[in-house]
């Protein structure tokens, strides 16, 4: 099965993966994952080459995570680049930083490893509404440096 180029649509998903899809729908769309893993909350994740699909306890999609090597776009432009990181911060207009994440709540996208040049942590995620609510008290405004 060919891996698609994903297109992040704020709070809808990383199309063709949509939030709310079931495990069966994901398997039908993307094939069997390379691995089925869990997180600390025992929630299921399907791991594919350079991306993963996270499910909640009801086993519907709430998250799509990408690492370098994945093909993922926002508005027709690749997002796993430093240039895209800077561009999307400008588009969002209200970037926040929390616990090593740069969170764009208007776009439903989070970055890690770009603002601190930590290559091992480089990732982009599309998340469903409310995913960062619990952390709002820890968030600080994120300002791009001028470099």
């Amino acid at each position: 099965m060919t891996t698609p180029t994903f297109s992040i649509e704020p709070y809808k998903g990383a199309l063709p993966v949509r939030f709310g899809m079931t495990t069966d729908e994901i398997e039908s769309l993307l094939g069997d994952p390379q691995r089925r893993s869990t997180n600390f909350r025992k929630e299921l994740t399907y791991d594919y080459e350079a991306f993963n699909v996270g499910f909640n306890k009801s086993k519907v999609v709430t998250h799509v995570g990408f690492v370098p090597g994945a093909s993922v776009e926002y508005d027709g432009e690749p997002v796993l680049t430093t240039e895209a990181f800077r561009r999307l911060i400008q588009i969002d207009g209200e970037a926040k930083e929390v616990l090593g994440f740069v969170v764009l709540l208007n776009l439903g996208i989070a970055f890690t490893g770009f603002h601190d040049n930590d290559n091992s942590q480089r990732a982009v995620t599309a998340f469903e509404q409310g995913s960062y609510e619990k952390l709002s008290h820890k968030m600080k405004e994120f300002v791009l440096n001028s470099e």
Partner: protein
Amino acid sequence: MTRGDHLLTSSHGSRSGSAVYRSDIEDLLNQGKVREAMAIEIRDVRRAALEGSGDLRKYNAALKEMLQYARRTDFLQ
């Protein structure tokens, strides 16, 4: 740690719930519950090793070294 195993850790930025996981660890550390935080992290590394490489004990030597260092430096009392 291999890249494949690292991607499976609960704190990795690509993973669902990773920000909440980091927050929980931070809260424990701020409360002085270092032992509890380290225990959670050790369990998570072992889970990632099992799911990623099929070997729960893959990082035992490194974890042992970390614990020895923590005790030696009074980080873990």
